[in-house]
């Protein structure tokens, strides 16, 4: 296994910039997820690591070796494709054993390796079938088996779960993570599903418009988003964002007419002229409508999830999501109060950058550039 480094990677397709000076280091044995909306350049970045695309500028290093100009076969990486990319004319056994066949491993040894890998992925009974006779989940396992059979320097996975149904996706998530930890395999995993990124990654690299928005462990992404985009992309439901006004007299921010005192964080907010605050649904509390220092709102919709209830509340023109206890209910349009604990809020400057993070346990906020 090896470390992967992208240095100043830039990619243009027909003059359109897809990636912009991407710098990224994946440590030996680390599971890094490239996360972002479709078209953000994450798959292109992965294909550049694989050698299926050549960067317009920048360098790719794998295991300390500059592989920028090398073909995929010289990079010693294994890839799992979104469409599985099994060889349709070969049996499952031949598919799994193909990387070994290319490397001239003799047939008996190859058969043993195939049997071992197939067994560990519970597809041993499928070896004589053809890919088209398999279900999506089985094909996925075959594709994984083909990737792990020759211990490569790194695994590259391009949305490997997005063609599976929701239930299978969740269980495969855990399996891939276990497999990766058992093999201690350097892995780059591309997805647009933030839940996949949160549950699987050691670190998540959130990309938008070809630029890294934040590269941090999932919890840090969740608690200390670097900007409004990260806040809105990570977490389900996404972070609430509210327009605010600064009130120097009371050292407070005014949200929808209600003043919320900030105390010693006011100075930093004022210095950056913050315009919005972000806060998670679980940091908000529903109260009776006329409680002091609460935001006045009305119930927009109630979404019971069984274990908890998410209530969307209309505050002025903005909808915010509040987490309530199980069984909480109210008629639509009913007036409610929403209490904000400002310690758990972060504040965005006019460009959307987070200038003041929430107060709290965990890591200190990531340093500003």
């Amino acid at each position, binding site marked *: 296994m090896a470390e992967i480094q992208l240095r100043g990677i830039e990619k243009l397709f027909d003059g359109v910039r897809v990636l912009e000076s991407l710098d990224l280091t994946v440590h030996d044995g680390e599971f890094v997820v490239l996360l972002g909306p479709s078209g953000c350049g994450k798959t292109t970045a992965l294909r550049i690591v*694989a*050698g*299926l695309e050549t960067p317009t500028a920048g360098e790719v290093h794998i295991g300390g070796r500059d592989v920028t100009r090398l*073909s*995929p*076969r010289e990079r010693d*990486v*294994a*890839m799992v*494709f979104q*469409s*599985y*990319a*099994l*060889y*349709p*004319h070969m049996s499952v056994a031949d598919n799994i054993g*193909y*990387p070994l066949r*290319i*490397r001239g491993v003799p047939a008996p040894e190859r058969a043993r390796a195939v049997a071992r890998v197939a067994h560990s992925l519970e597809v041993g009974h499928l070896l004589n079938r053809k890919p088209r006779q398999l279900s999506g989940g089985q094909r996925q396992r075959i594709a994984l088996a*083909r990737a792990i059979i020759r211990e490569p320097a790194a695994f*590259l996975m391009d949305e490997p779960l997005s063609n599976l149904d929701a239930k299978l996706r969740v269980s495969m998530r855990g399996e891939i993570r276990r497999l990766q930890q058992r093999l201690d395999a350097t892995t780059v995993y591309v997805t647009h599903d933030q839940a996949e990124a949160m549950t699987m990654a050691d670190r998540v690299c959130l990309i938008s418009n070809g630029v890294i928005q934040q590269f941090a462990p999932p919890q840090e992404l969740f608690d200390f988003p670097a900007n409004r985009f990260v806040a809105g992309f990570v977490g389900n439901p996404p972070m609430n964002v509210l327009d605010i006004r600064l009130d120097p007299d009371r050292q407070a921010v005014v949200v929808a007419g209600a003043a919320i005192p900030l105390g010693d964080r006011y100075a930093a907010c004022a210095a950056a002229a913050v315009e919005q605050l972000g806060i998670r649904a679980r940091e908000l509390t529903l109260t009776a409508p006329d409680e002091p220092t609460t935001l006045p709102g009305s119930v927009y919709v109630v979404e019971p999830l069984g274990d908890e209830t998410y209530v969307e509340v209309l505050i002025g023109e903005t909808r915010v999501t509040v987490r309530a206890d199980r069984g909480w209910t109210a008629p639509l349009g009913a007036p409610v109060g929403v209490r904000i604990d400002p310690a758990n809020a972060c504040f965005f400057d006019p460009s959307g950058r987070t200038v003041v993070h929430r107060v709290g346990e965990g890591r200190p906020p990531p340093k500003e550039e």
Partner: protein
Amino acid sequence: MAAATTPGTLGRTLRGAGLDRVLPYLMLGPAIFLVLGVVVYPLIEGLRSSTGFFRFGRMVRSVGLDNYRQAFADPAFGEALLTTARFVFLAVTIETVLGLGLALLLAREGRFVRRIRATLILPMIVTPVVVGIVFRLIYASDVGMLASVAHLFGLNSPQILSNGDSAFWGLVILDVWEWTPLLFLILLAGIQSLPVEPFEAARVDGAGAWRTFVDHTLPLLRPTILVAVTLRAIEALTTFDQVYVLTRGGPGTSTQLISIYGYQTFFQFQQVGYAAAMLFIVALVVILASGFAVGLMRSRGR
């Protein structure tokens, strides 16, 4: 009911249910009539001719299967069949290999490539008779193009059409020139419709260009190759115009394909029944061979 205003319902109400049963056949009528007239009638008439004895273009009496017996006893017929088989095998093989090579070379996109592709198709749209004339002019030992080139280098004129072997190969080369584009076109379409992902997977798995070709391109392309080869082979079996113009089957019988032999038997020797019998045998062989090829595609293609 409101539906009564639609034409179908109207027709049903007015003319009763009987029309519904007849209408489909009425609609198919012209097409069926055409097929009967153009395909089935000549076929039956040909089959009838093949069992008859003709004088001055008229069947004078039926001879049963005598014409077929004559065919199997006729060494010239056997030789013509063999020449045809040799011609079809060589021409189609060379065309397939060349067509596949060109298709692989030109499968990528680009303005230059598109222009070359358009140029490559030209031979196919030239009338076969014209192709025959052009190659006759190329091969001619007195004023031919090859002769002029040979003279330029101080060599003697090559006697291509006056020598049996070289005339046969001259014919094969003509056919290759004319029909490689067809194979090229079909195989190009096949290559361009191959899935991309398995090839990317093969690259990452470590396969080089040759391994990729042998392990993936050929197996995935096999159904297309089979279709192309079958199509071309069936057509090559009936090659006539070019041979007629180029050599008329000569020198000797070196380029006497079955179509030429049949033509001569019919028109020059006026043995209508015998010619019909021979060509029916050929038709039978073609039908069996193509049936076999289709079966092969069905079983291996999936």
